[in-house]
């Protein structure tokens, strides 16, 4: 696969390193010529200096035959334009943008970017998971269908403890995928009873995440 990466920050650097080691053809475009000199020493001739939002730079990088263009600069406006130029001028099949402000994810998708990666969201999620006794955790976004995997802890005194999975008024667009009880994974059926201390792992459309949170966290006070 031919992959063009724009932006030689930490993300761009390690992405280049990883994708090269996986045997892909990679080209890294970075604005700062001092940085590119360093990268060339490290990676060889797979680095060019230039502004990846400029069509001329993308053209000479062979964007027209690229399978993927990944924009990972620190500026959202640059990442958006890089992906849009790649898509509209060079008809690149898959464009991926790093989104620094999580609010921009929706906008980017609406404006034609195929995949958005919000590192702020990821870090937030990781921190959320690392804080003890968080009862409802958004684990991961599934990129394509706007779905998320969430983890809801059944706290002591929860009204849903003692009820069966089948007896929960689970909203539409949501499925209870697993229970984790004392470190053991349980694939639930309708008759499985929920116990205090269980982790409920659910896959839900992001639009109903809040409803699900209310259902599972009823009467919970932090």
């Amino acid at each position, binding site marked *: 696969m031919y992959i063009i990466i724009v932006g030689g920050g930490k993300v761009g650097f390690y992405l280049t390193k990883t994708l090269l080691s996986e045997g892909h053809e990679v080209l890294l475009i970075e604005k700062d010529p001092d940085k590119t000199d360093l990268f060339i020493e490290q990676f060889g001739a797979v680095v060019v200096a230039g502004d990846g939002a*400029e*069509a001329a730079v993308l053209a000479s990088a062979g964007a027209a035959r690229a399978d993927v263009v990944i924009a990972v600069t620190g500026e*959202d406006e640059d990442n*958006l*334009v890089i992906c849009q*130029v790649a898509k*509209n001028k060079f008809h690149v099949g898959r464009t991926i943008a790093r989104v620094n402000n999580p609010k*921009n994810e929706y*906008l980017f998708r*609406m404006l034609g970017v195929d995949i958005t990666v919000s590192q702020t969201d990821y870090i937030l999620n990781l921190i959320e998971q690392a804080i003890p006794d968080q009862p409802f955790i958004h684990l991961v976004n599934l990129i394509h269908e706007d779905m998320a995997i969430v983890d809801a802890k059944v706290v002591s005194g929860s009204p849903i403890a003692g009820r069966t999975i089948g007896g929960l008024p689970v909203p539409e667009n949501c499925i209870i995928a697993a229970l984790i009880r004392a470190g053991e994974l349980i694939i639930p059926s309708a008759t499985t009873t929920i116990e205090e201390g269980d982790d409920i792992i659910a896959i839900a459309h992001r639009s109903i995440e809040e409803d699900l949170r209310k259902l599972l966290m009823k009467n919970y006070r932090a």
Partner: protein
Amino acid sequence: MKVVIMGCGRVGARVAAVLDHNGHEVTVIDINSRAFRRLPDEFHGRTLIGTGIDEDVLKRAGITDAAAFIAVTNGDNRNIMAAQVARNIFAVPEVICRIYDPVREDTYRRLGLTTVCPTTVISAQILDHVMSASTLGA
């Protein structure tokens, strides 16, 4: 007419001053408060510190019922992004976007943005002068 202008450089400040003078309701956004010094003393419009690529800033600037949005910061990509937010999220009727890079300007004009490219406009004007001078001299 309610107009939101992003970027209070020479062009932004001048456009804001003229529209304000003609009785329009103008809000100017800039990330740097010092930029507002370019506005004339008699300017009656609003100034707002922030970046126009942030929807919340645009809302505070009154984008929801603006008749026009003008993106004239010195960053092409920032102008392009803000213009698309104004057009696609807030459905502003008239959106004008300055893009210095002629190739990018061409791309976004094809995508339906109203664009102004100073590079081509100014070059054409200079070339006109050069050509007419050489005709006279010939």
